[in-house]
């Protein structure tokens, strides 16, 4: 970024002369420091894999929750400031339940992404009339993975701190996301099965993570049209990670 931002990075309500809001761009930077999240869509369902940072052997591994259920048909994982993500997750869950109450149907994933982004861009120097406003951008990106019942198709959306959302066939955010994305560009195809996608997610996490992968620091979940949100069991996860190790060994003997 620029050597001298001339003070234009101090506030979130002033554009720089180049037309940028620096605080938003810095927030994007915060995400690159976060742990890696990978999502892959297939015709059978959608897979979300995350890296869990276990920084001490004294940490309770289960207390680090990286992938969460928003509703029975959507999962979310975030990269960046976890505390900020919790606000967004709470908002997303309420939106889903409200929609079910009003319309007796699951909320579409794109609509959910839109509603999260509405909250994400409602930061600013809130005056008297708006006390609940965040004074700064949210420091997280959220990857939403779910099943769109209206299209009968998987949906993967990424919401970023600027309040923008984009739909993807496969996507990665956080640490090592660039490597993960270029791998996905090569490997993703229309005909991918759910099992293949799970393997691919394990392989990518193995490649991008600094720590060696194990059932303790990796979490994989799937969302299918019939089963909804379903975490991959520990045995299945171990098998996937073994596959990832074997694949890596085969490439680099």
């Amino acid at each position, binding site marked *: 970024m620029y050597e001298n931002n001339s003070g234009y990075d101090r506030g979130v309500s002033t554009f720089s002369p180049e037309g940028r809001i620096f605080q938003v761009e810095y927030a994007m930077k915060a995400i690159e420091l976060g742990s890696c999240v990978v999502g892959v869509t297939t015709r059978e369902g959608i897979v979300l894999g995350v890296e869990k940072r276990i920084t001490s052997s004294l940490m309770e591994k289960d207390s680090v929750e990286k992938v969460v259920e928003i509703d029975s048909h959507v999962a979310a994982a975030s990269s960046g400031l976890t505390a900020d993500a919790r606000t967004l997750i709470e908002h997303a869950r309420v939106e889903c339940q409200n929609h079910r109450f*009003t319309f007796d149907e699951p909320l*579409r994933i794109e609509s959910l992404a839109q509603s999260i982004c509405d909250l994400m861009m409602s930061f600013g120097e809130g005056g008297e009339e708006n006390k609940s406003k965040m004074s700064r951008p949210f420091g997280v990106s959220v990857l939403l993975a779910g099943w769109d019942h209206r299209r009968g198709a998987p949906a993967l959306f990424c919401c970023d701190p600027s309040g923008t959302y984009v739909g993807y066939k496969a996507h990665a955010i956080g640490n090592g996301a660039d490597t993960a994305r270029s791998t996905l560009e090569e490997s993703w195809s229309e005909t991918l099965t759910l099992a293949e996608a799970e393997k691919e997610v394990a392989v990518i996490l193995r490649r991008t993570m600094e720590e060696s992968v194990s059932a303790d620091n990796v979490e994989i979940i799937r969302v299918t049209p019939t089963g909804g949100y379903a975490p991959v069991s520990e045995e299945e996860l171990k098998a996937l990670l073994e596959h990832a190790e074997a694949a890596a060994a085969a490439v680099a003997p």
Partner: protein
Amino acid sequence: MAFAAAAASSGGPAFFSSAGAAPMAADIGPAAATVVPKSVGIKEHRFEPYDFNGGTVLAIGGKDFVVVAVDTRLSEDYHILTRDVNRSVVLSPHCVLATGGCHTDVTTLHKVIDMRVKDYKHDHEVDIETHSVAQMLGNTLYGRRFFPYYAFNVLSGLDAEGKGAVYTYDAVGSFERVPYACQGAGQRLIIPYLDNVVGFKSRTDKPEGDLTPEAAVNIAKDAFITAAERQIRVGDSIRIFTIARGVAMKEARFAIRED
């Protein structure tokens, strides 16, 4: 002001009416002091927000279609206000709401629901499904639990599988999906007929094969012709909507007796 001044200065007239001040007790004489002439009697003013303007709605669901019929007579007491009123609203290419009751409530409710359906389309970029309209209409009615819309709704459309769906409501939003329904002024005359010829209730001669849209339209016409014979609020004409899978919605008019 005049009242206050008169009452204060002279112990003035006790009552006012369109005929002016009521005579004071002294003018009538002591014997008549307790008798208040009828023309100046106390009138109790009540808030009467509801009126019943008639309206009968009928819907028959089939395997891949639904037929909706609703009459066009707008009445108030023994008057016919118009023979050509619209009590229905097309909410989406596969969904119609038709309503009897207090017509001002009916039009307002239709506007509210239509607005919410359009909002849904803008928010989610797809047409709303019939069961979602059903839930939303139920919530909208329940939202007025303590000052209800005086409106009796039948919501009809195709469901997500393309089957005919009919939902029937009470005024405060309790609803149910049913094979066929009738609400409003002619309800008590029409429901037994539908039970017999659509529901085949207590009959052992239920025919093979499914009801066709044409047969359902004929049943709807017969039902209204029959109801118009005995119920003064039913008459003039009916609007008939036919919503079938894979075909555009059709609307037709059918005249029934006007007296």
